[in-house]
């Protein structure tokens, strides 16, 4: 027995879990970061979309036996489409409203959503039946890793890359960046911000749904989901700096790994570490790691 290699094995294992947890947080939160940054909308109800994604995945898998990749896509698409209706019908009205109104509005939305979720799905968490090819373990360099967690990590990085391409290299992305930087300016140079907002909102909600579905195996879809995990999403967004694209990625990795390692080494401090770290980080950089410092 070699204590050093034992420790290394433990750390690799923990780090792996930390990263996969981080990817779930990232995919859910990145949409919130963009909508908050661009529209300045304090959307506390972001978790509703993540929950919806999880439920859609669960229904697709359990009730209709739809293959897993299609079910993921269905979660993204259905929630995106539904969110367009919400954005046009409800959110758009509160773009100019103050922070407080937006807080109240989104809390109202959370209440309605969790009540509906409870009526439809009951009080228990929805079961997620993963396909066999995502179950079990994969051996890499002598370590066993759970296949699904590996999938989550790969998927998360792929999403991050795809988003980076979409925002940095496309015309749509250029518009989004312009609108995040300066909404009035974007409008004055002829960008249809109304449509841009709707599209971005749909993308952001769709990402949340995708993250909710991807993470459903860990953060089980249950009716009180939007309130239960709200704080974590907010932490990722605020530490990352809202309006930023890579901010949430780095913040999620930081929080995912720090949280996991912290719990491994100092389990007695429970949830302290993550909050203390958040306070420390925000005092050091009040606008988050990648937030606009104005």
């Amino acid at each position: 027995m070699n204590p050093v290699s034992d420790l290394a094995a433990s750390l690799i294992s923990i780090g792996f879990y930390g990263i996969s947890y981080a990817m779930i947080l990232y995919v859910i939160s990145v949409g919130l970061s963009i909508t908050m940054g661009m529209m300045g909308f304090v959307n506390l109800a972001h978790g509703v979309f993540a929950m919806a994604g999880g439920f859609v995945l669960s229904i697709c898998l359990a009730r209709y036996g739809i293959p897993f990749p299609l079910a993921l896509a269905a979660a993204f698409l259905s929630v995106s489409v539904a969110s367009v209706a919400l954005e046009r019908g409800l959110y758009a009205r509160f773009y100019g409203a103050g922070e407080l109104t937006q807080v109240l509005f989104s809390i109202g939305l959370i209440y309605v959503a969790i009540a509906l979720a409870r009526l439809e799905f009951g009080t228990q968490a929805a079961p997620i039946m993963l396909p066999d090819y995502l179950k079990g373990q994969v051996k890499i360099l002598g370590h066993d890793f759970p296949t699904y967690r590996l999938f989550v990590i790969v998927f998360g990085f792929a999403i991050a890359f795809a988003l980076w391409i979409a925002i940095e290299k496309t015309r749509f992305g250029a518009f989004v960046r312009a609108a995040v930087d300066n909404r009035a300016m974007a409008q004055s140079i002829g960008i249809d911000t109304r449509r841009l907002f709707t599209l971005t909102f749909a993308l952001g909600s769709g990402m949340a749904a995708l993250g909710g579905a991807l993470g459903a195996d860990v953060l089980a879809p249950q009716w009180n989901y939007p309130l239960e995990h709200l704080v974590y999403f907010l932490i990722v967004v605020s530490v990352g700096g809202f309006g930023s694209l890579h901010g949430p990625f780095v913040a999620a990795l930081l929080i995912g790994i720090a949280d996991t390692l912290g719990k491994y080494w100092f389990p007695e401090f429970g949830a302290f570490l993550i909050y203390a770290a958040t306070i420390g980080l925000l005092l050091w950089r009040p606008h988050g790691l990648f937030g606009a410092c104005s």
Partner: protein
Amino acid sequence: MTRIKAPGLFFALAFAGLAMFSGSGAVSAQTIKIGVVSTFSGPAANFGEYSVKAMQLYEKLHASELPAGVKIELLVRDDGGPNPDKAKQLAQELIVRDKVQILAGAGFTPNAMAIAPLATQAKTPFLILNAGASVVTTKSPYIARFSFTMAQSAAPLGSWAAKKYKTAFTLVADYGPGVDSETAFTSAYSASGGTIVGSVRVPPMTLEYAPFLQRVKDAKPDVLMVFVPAGKTATGLMKGFVDLGLKDAGIKLVGPGDIVPDEELANMDDGAIGVTTVYHYSAWADRPANKAFVEAWQKEYGTSTQTNTFAVSGWDAMDAIFQIIKAGNGVVDGDKAMEVLKSYKDANSPRGAISIDPETRDIVQNEYLREVRKVDGKLENIELETIATALKDPVKDQMKK
């Protein structure tokens, strides 16, 4: 000048609106009112839902046994979770406004503690349907418990585990029930010659157990005792247990029955197979009384729903309430009702023979060793043996000594 006149009007309306909600009206003297304060919303909504369903089912099936003309009215109130102030307010209103003769409920210990002084002041019998901290029954002479105490399952589990496994690790949620079961397990396990090689307390709402389970894996115990809240947290733990290879490493997962609730098994995956628990009830127990109970339940609420501990608590409590009503011939007097409760016995409860300890007013019941197995493609809690018969609350027993 603008005068803001209407606020006053609105206040008046708001408070006047209250009056409309107060009209429960006069009822015939022969209606026995039972107030249930439990949890029907929030993460623990199962607590109240199952108990009340069982109480209603019992009432429906046994209505003919009541003295002629006597009816039962259940007044159900939601405390929303561990909210002692809310629970107290609801109980107080049930007592002073609705004039309930019997109180039942309390999913959470703090809620039970908040209601206890009211039960004493109003001399209203208060039947505990879930809260499991030992101390609860000492808070009022009008309390009788129909659920369980944490130590009732954890202590026999410890003694049993010590006989089969040399070293143990405990992992519990860092809140009352978790700490109670850790304490009871640890002392019973050590007393029977086992060695605890490590323990960790985790935040109650933990979903990702990898870091904690890695610690367990590092310590290489023979057996891991866990207590975490039922539902997705327990599911998450078992997933992690398999994913991190603890199961393959030959570590045995045991715990109080709360970690594999009957109603949640359908949502758990095969990782739960082999989990061994000690509990006072299983929906799959083959006692005739239980089979009848489950059959009646599924006939009423559908075959997709399971009976569980909350249901059996509600069922037995309703049986006791019927005895109180029958003994008083339709009249409920607090002190007399307590006498009935203290001598309450039922050899034929779905969970086996139970009684109320006249001294502590705590439940006396059997504890069963169970294992999660797959039967016809579904997970079930299969009772293997009765490892404790007519067990009193071990904590109170110890305090006496």
